[in-house]
C-alpha cells in the first residue's frame, strides 16, 4: 500500500505546499487504491478518474506557475451520490434516478471545485439516504473495511468505507438522523453533522428538508475541520442556510482543549442497554476527559424517549412530499404500462419499479402521518416532541458546554442482521437523532475497539447551535490524548484489507 494514501489530509496539504509531492501523484495514488480495493469494498457508484486527474494537473500547473491556491487545492475528495454533479451521474442510490445527469452542481460541489479539489467519484448510500447500513442501496451495499462481512454504517456507508479504506482522504456526507456520525463510529472515522444551515443544502437531493445537513467525513478531527471550513457559509440559493459565520474550525481543532470544559453526560444516553464493549470504551473515554481537566455533569433529557418516534413521523412526512417529484414526467426513469395508460398509471408504474422497499415504506408512512385524519395525532404530535427535545437541550446546555454519549449502541453489525427488522434498524440512530431534531451540531470520534469483536467504537459530542467549534476543540483534544496512549492512529488498528 502506498504510504501516500495513509497520510492525513492535513499532511498531504503540507507536502503538496512544500513541493514534496504533486496533486497528480496524490490523486493517482488514491485512484490506484480504488482500483485495488474498490470491488471488494464497493464504496463508489461512479468513479471520475479523468476529471479528477485533470483537476490535479491544473493544480500542479498553477502551483508551478507560482499562483496562490486555495487551502485544499489538489487534495482529492469523494462526494456522496445524493449531491448533484454536472459531470457525473447522480442517483441517490435509487434505480429511479439511474444515469441521471444533473444540469447543475450542488453548492457544496461548486465549493469543492472552486477549492480545486479533484473529485474522485460519487459514493454509495442507502436509497435516498434512508437506512443505516447501505443495504438499501439499489446498487448493492458497501462493505466495512474492518470486516467485509459487516455494514459500514448508513446511509453514508460509501463515504465512510472510502475514507476508512484509504480510497479517499476526505469525503462529503449528509446527516439526517446520523448518516454521517453512525458510519463514522462503525468504521473508526470522524464524522460531523454541522449546525443546521451551516452548509448549503442546494443540490442535495432532499430526504427530510428540516433535518438534512451536509458535513465532513475524515480520518481525524483536523482534516474534518479543513473540510467544514471549505464547504460552510451562507448560500443565497438556500433560504435556510445561516447568514452568520461560525468561525474557523481549523483554528478550533488546532487549539483543542478540555481544561475547564463542562461535559454533560446525557442520562438517557449513558449506555444502558448498549453493547458492553461500547460501554467500556465510553467509560474509559469519560475518565480521560476528566483526567484532562473536564468536569462531567449529568444532564436529564426526558423527552429523548420519544425522539425516534417523532423522527420517524417527521422524516417520512417530509420525505413523502420531497419524493413526489419523482414521477417520470421531467427526468429519471419512466415505466409505461401496456395499453394506453393515463399519466397517473405511468407515474404509479414508474414509482413502483423505481423505488425500493424502504423508500416505499417511508412514503406510505409519511403520507399517512400527514393525512387530514391523522395529522394532529401523528405529524402534529411529532412537532410538539421536537419542541420538547429542543427544550431538553436548552436546559442541558445551561449546565454543560458540550454533551456526550456513545455514538451508537453497537459496533458494526453483519449484513442481513437487521434488514428485515425496520424497528431494530431504526434504533441504531437513538443517540444521533436528537441533534437533527434540534438542529444542533454533533461529532463522532473513534475511541478504540470493542473488546468482544475488535470493531471500532465512537463517542459523540453535541454542542449548542452555532457552536460547532466547541466540537472540534473537544474532539481534537480527546483524539490527541488517545493517539498519545495508543502510540498510533485509530486506523492503524485496522486489519489489512484482504482483497484479490
Amino acid at each position, binding site marked *: 500500500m502506498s504510504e501516500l494514501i495513509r497520510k492525513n489530509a492535513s499532511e498531504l496539504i503540507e507536502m503538496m505546499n512544500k513541493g514534496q509531492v504533486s496533486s497528480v501523484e496524490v490523486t493517482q495514488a488514491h485512484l490506484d487504491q480504488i482500483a485495488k480495493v474498490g470491488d471488494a469494498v464497493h464504496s463508489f457508484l461512479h468513479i471520475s478518474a479523468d476529471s479528477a486527474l485533470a483537476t490535479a494537473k491544473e493544480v500542479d500547473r498553477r502551483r508551478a506557475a507560482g499562483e496562490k491556491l486555495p487551502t485544499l487545492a489538489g487534495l482529492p475528495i469523494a462526494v456522496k451520490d445524493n449531491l448533484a454533479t454536472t459531470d457525473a451521474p447522480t442517483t441517490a442510490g435509487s434505480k429511479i434516478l439511474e444515469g441521471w445527469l*444533473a444540469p447543475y452542481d450542488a453548492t457544496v460541489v461548486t465549493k469543492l471545485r472552486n477549492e480545486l479539489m479533484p473529485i474522485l467519484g460519487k459514493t454509495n448510500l442507502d436509497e435516498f439516504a434512508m437506512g443505516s447500513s447501505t443495504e438499501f442501496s439499489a446498487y448493492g451495499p458497501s462493505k466495512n473495511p474492518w470486516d467485509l462481512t459487516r455494514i459500514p454504517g448508513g446511509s453514508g456507508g460509501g463515504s465512510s468505507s472510502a475514507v476508512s479504506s484509504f480510497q479517499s482522504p476526505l469525503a462529503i456526507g449528509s446527516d439526517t438522523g446520523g448518516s454521517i456520525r453512525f458510519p463514522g463510529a462503525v468504521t473508526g472515522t470522524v464524522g460531523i453533522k454541522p449546525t443546521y444551515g451551516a452548509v448549503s443544502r*442546494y443540490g442535495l437531493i432532499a430526504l427530510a428538508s428540516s433535518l438534512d445537513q451536509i458535513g465532513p467525513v475524515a480520518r481525524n478531527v483536523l482534516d474534518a475541520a479543513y473540510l467544514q471550513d471549505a464547504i460552510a457559509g451562507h448560500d*443565497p440559493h*438556500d433560504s435556510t442556510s445561516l447568514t452568520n459565520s461560525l468561525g474557523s474550525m481549523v483554528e478550533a481543532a488546532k487549539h483543542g482543549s478540555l481544561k475547564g470544559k463542562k461535559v454533560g453526560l446525557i442520562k438517557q444516553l449513558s449506555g444502558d442497554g448498549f453493547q458492553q464493549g461500547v460501554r467500556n470504551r465510553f467509560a474509559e473515554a469519560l475518565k480521560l476527559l476528566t483526567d484532562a481537566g473536564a468536569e462531567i455533569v449529568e444532564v436529564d433529557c426526558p423527552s429523548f424517549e420519544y425522539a425516534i418516534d417523532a423522527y420517524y413521523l417527521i422524516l417520512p412526512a417530509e420525505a413523502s*412530499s420531497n419524493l413526489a417529484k419523482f414521477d417520470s414526467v421531467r427526468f429519471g426513469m419512466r415505466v409505461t404500462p401496456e395499453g394506453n395508460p393515463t399519466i397517473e398509471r405511468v407515474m404509479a408504474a414508474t414509482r413502483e419499479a423505481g423505488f425500493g422497499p424502504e423508500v416505499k415504506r417511508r412514503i406510505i408512512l409519511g403520507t399517512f402521518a400527514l393525512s387530514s385524519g391523522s395529522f394532529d395525532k401523528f405529524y402534529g404530535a411529532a412537532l410538539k416532541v421536537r419542541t420538547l427535545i429542543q427544550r431538553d437541550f436548552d436546559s442541558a446546555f445551561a449546565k454543560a458546554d458540550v454533551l456526550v454519549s456513545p455514538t451508537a449502541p453497537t459496533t458494526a453489525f453483519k449484513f442481513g442482521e437487521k434488514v428485515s427488522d425496520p424497528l431494530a434498524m431504526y434504533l441504531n440512530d437513538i443517540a444521533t437523532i436528537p441533534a437533527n431534531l434540534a438542529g444542533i451540531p454533533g461529532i463522532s470520534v473513534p475511541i478504540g475497539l470493542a473488546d468482544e469483536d475488535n470493531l471500532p467504537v465512537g463517542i459523540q459530542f453535541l454542542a449548542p447551535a452555532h457552536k460547532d467549534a466547541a466540537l472540534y476543540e473537544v474532539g481534537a483534544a480527546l483524539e490527541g490524548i488517545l493517539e498519545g496512549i495508543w502510540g498510533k492512529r485509530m486506523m492503524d488498528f485496522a486489519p489489512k484489507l484482504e482483497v484479490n
Partner: protein
Amino acid sequence: MAKANLMDYEKAIELFEVVIGLEVHVELNTNTKMFCGCRNDFGDEPNTNVCPICIGLPGSLPVVNGKAVESSISIGLALGCQIEPNGGFSRKNYFYPDLAKNYQTSQFKDPIAFEGQIDVEVPSGNKFTVLIERAHMEEDAGKLTHIGGATGRIQGAEYSLVDYNRAGVPLVEIVTKPVYGAGAEAPELAAAYVRLIREIVKALGVSEARMERGNVRCDANVSIRPHGQEKLGTRTETKNVNSLRSIERAVRYEIQRQAHILAGGGTITQETRHWHEDKGATSAGRPKSDADDYRYFPEPDLVPVQPSTELIERLRAALPENPADRRKRLATEWGFAELEFRDVVNAGLMDLIEETVAQGAKPQSARKWYAGELSRIANSEEKDVLALNITPAQVAELANLVESGKINDRIAREVLSAVLDGAGSPEQIVKERGLEVVSDDGALIAAIDEALKSQPDVLEKIREGKVQAAGAVIGAVMQAMKGQADAARVRELVLERAASL
C-alpha cells in the same frame, strides 16, 4: 353537454336566497418568478423561462421573491386586511403533471393578509360590503396542452404537452367570506367585485390585471337555500371564469340551474363546474368534497415570512387612492353627466378611458368611442371591450384625428376596423391609405364649381336663398372627393361659391 333545465330567474330569486363566495387569483407582474430567478413571462417559447427550481429537479430549493411579498402586502392593505407579521409557506400535496414538484408551495394557516372588507357598487347604484377572508401567496402551475382530443380537453387526448414557463409565477389568491343578501343582484355583485379587484391591483401596479390573458382569474362559488333556512345550501365552484361578463352569466346560470334542481326535489352535487362561454352554460367537473386531502404541512425549505412594521407602513403610505375616491375624482375631472359616468363604470370602461385621456384624448370623445362603437363591436363579437385588439393610445390617436378634422366619422370607423384587424396605428393607416380629408380648398372649390355648373337649377335655388338645395351639390362633391372631405367645410364653400359665381 345537454343544457340543464333552468328555472326562470325571477322565480328562482323569489324562492331562494343566494349565497356567493369568490376566489380571485391575481397574477403578479414581478420581473421574476415566486421562488426562482426565471423571467415571469409565460408568453415566451414553451419551456424557455425555466430552471432546476421551477421544474422541480432533485436538490433544487426555493427562495422567496421579496417583491412578490411586498406586492401581496399592498393588495392586502388595499383590501383593508390585517398583515400577518409571522407567516410562512406550506406545501399543498397532489399529483398532476403541470405541478413540477407534485406539491404547490402555497400559504395555508397564516396567509400574508386576512380579515379585510371592501364596498362594491352594482349597476343599480346599490352598495354591498364584501368581507375578505384572506389573501395568500402561492405559485402558479405549468400549462397543459392536450393534443388529439376533440375539444382540447384531456378526455380523448392522445398526449399532452407541458409548458413550465408559467410554473412558479407568483399569484395572490383573494378569498371572500360568504356574501349574503345580494338577492337578484348577486351576479352583478360578483362581476362588480372582480372588476373592483382588477381596478385595485391595477392601481397598485402589481399586476397587468388583464382577465383575457389570465392575469386575473375568478372561481365563483354559488349556493342557494330556501328563504328562512339556516343551513347553507350545497355549493358548486365554477372555475376559471375569464371575463366580467362571463362571471355574471355563470353565477346567474348556476342560480337558475340549482333552483330548478331543488324545486324538483333533487339535490345539488358538491363539485367544480366549467363555464362554457359559447353555450352560456356550466358543466360538471370533478366532484369536490371538503375532505380533499392535500396533506398540507409547513414548507421546510423556506424560512418564515416576517414583514417588518416599517415595511408594512411604508407600503401603506404608498397606497394609491381607493377606488371610491378615484371615481369621485374622475367624475369631476371628466365632467360627464351622472348617468354617463355610471354607464362607464358599469361597463368597466373607467381604466380604458383614463388611459386614453392620459394619451391625449378629450374625455368626452374617449367616452364616445368606448361606450359607442367599441362596445358595439365587442358586443357583436361577444367579448369584453378590453379584449379588442386596440390600445388606449390608438383610440386617443383616432379620436384626435376626428377632433382635428383630419378624418370624418365615416372614415374613422373604417380606420378603426383596420386597427382592429392589426393593420397598424390610426395615423399609419390614414397615411398609408390616403384617407385624410381633402382640406385643400383649391381642390374642393374646383369640384364645387364643377358641380354647380352642371346643376344650374340648383345654383339658381341657392342664390334664391333656398339653402337646403345645397345638399345635392354637397353630395356630388363628397362623391367626387371619395368621401374624404369635411362635409361642413364643403357646405360653407358651396354657399360661398354660389354667391360669387
